[in-house]
């Protein structure tokens, strides 16, 4: 039991260290996100649309695109340099490997992106009372997106990540609609507790189930 705990902790530490050292992998998406958020208002007529309205209109797709680009090659290098093979031999399955990758992605990519999104929400003069709701929505939304994109990446590991994105997009659309509705309710000042509960439930299920499916998909590729 202690051996397993030590092994999982080492895996988490190693993943965190690798990502921390690969600066472009986490800083790049944050810069890209900021650039889109800055550039978007410049491309439209701001006289007819308020900044807060604009923010709520573009944020979901911007986060989705940023998530896609930030985990575009999440398994690619590990697959081709034999790291995934070594994890499989060590643990006899890839669940721990995928779960650790997910945990580090949440800590080092999702949380900073949520924080920057909130900073932009404040800068775009979004009603301050919306911020706690937005924060929770962004975290859940990204956890769902990232899980699906992990799965897409695993499916298409030897065919390029675009194919993976095409395959998982139909599953992502319902989540985009759900979060779009949540933002509409926020604008209308309708409480969204039920959406928060549902989104949290979906993200927990996605973390457990999709991690498992992603691990199996990667193992099948090794065979």
């Amino acid at each position: 039991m202690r051996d397993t705990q030590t092994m999982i902790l080492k895996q988490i530490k190693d993943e965190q260290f690798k990502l921390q050292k690969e600066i472009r992998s986490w800083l790049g998406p944050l810069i890209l996100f900021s650039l889109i958020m800055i550039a978007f208002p410049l491309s439209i007529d701001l006289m007819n649309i308020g900044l807060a309205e604009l923010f709520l209109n573009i944020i979901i797709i911007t986060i989705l695109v940023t998530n896609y680009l930030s985990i575009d090659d999440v398994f690619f290098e590990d697959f081709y340099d034999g790291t995934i093979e070594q994890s499989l031999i060590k643990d006899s399955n890839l669940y721990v490997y995928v779960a650790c990758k997910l945990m580090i992605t949440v800590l080092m990519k999702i949380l900073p992106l949520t924080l920057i999104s909130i900073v932009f929400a404040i800068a775009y003069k979004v009603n301050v009372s919306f911020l706690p709701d937005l924060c929770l929505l962004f975290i859940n939304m990204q956890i769902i997106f990232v899980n699906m994109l992990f799965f897409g990446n695993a499916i298409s590991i030897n065919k390029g990540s675009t194919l993976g994105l095409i395959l998982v997009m139909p599953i992502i659309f319902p989540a985009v609609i759900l979060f779009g509705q949540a933002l509409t309710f926020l604008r209308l000042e309708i409480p969204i507790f039920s959406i928060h509960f549902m989104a949290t439930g979906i993200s927990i299920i996605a973390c457990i189930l999709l991690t498992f499916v992603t691990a199996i998909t990667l193992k099948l590729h090794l065979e």
Partner: protein
Amino acid sequence: MTNLLDIQNISYSINSEKILRNVSLKIQSNMMYQFIGGNGAGKTTLLKIILEIMPPSKGKIFKHQSFSKKYIGHKIPLKNYLTLDENLKIYLNNFSETKLIDTLKKLNLYDKRDTKFSSLSYGQQRKAALIPIFVETHEMFLLDEPFSGLDNAHIEIIKKEMISLVGDGKTVIFTSHIPAELECETLRL
């Protein structure tokens, strides 16, 4: 010597092309095994079947007891953007620092600890990948063409270490294109 594995009539085929045909072998502790064969003979495939990464198309492997194993394959699971030292901290498990320093000195890698992995030559990268056989403790080591890319002096160091592992009661299985001058059981594929 204790029995670790019984490989019974293993066959493996991809798209109706037979890679392995009815391979049978008993793997015991305290022994060294060499799989010899040309390109595409199925040496790596057999190692991966033993490692349970790939299931055989036919036949089975009977495991007498559980044991820890280390596989060092063609691929080098070390990252180009990290230094050799940083890579080893991630790559190695349960190792003693003193043993690691001795090994790095033995393999002429001690001065390269702070060098980015991408700046090392292929031979140096291969040597780094082989460090676990010197510092990690496992019952079985499976090495896929461990001598490729190494100069003669370092091939001798690796061979010496493999002999010493067998002397310590471990099992070493390795693949090669040409017979290595080592006292071991040979399986021609």
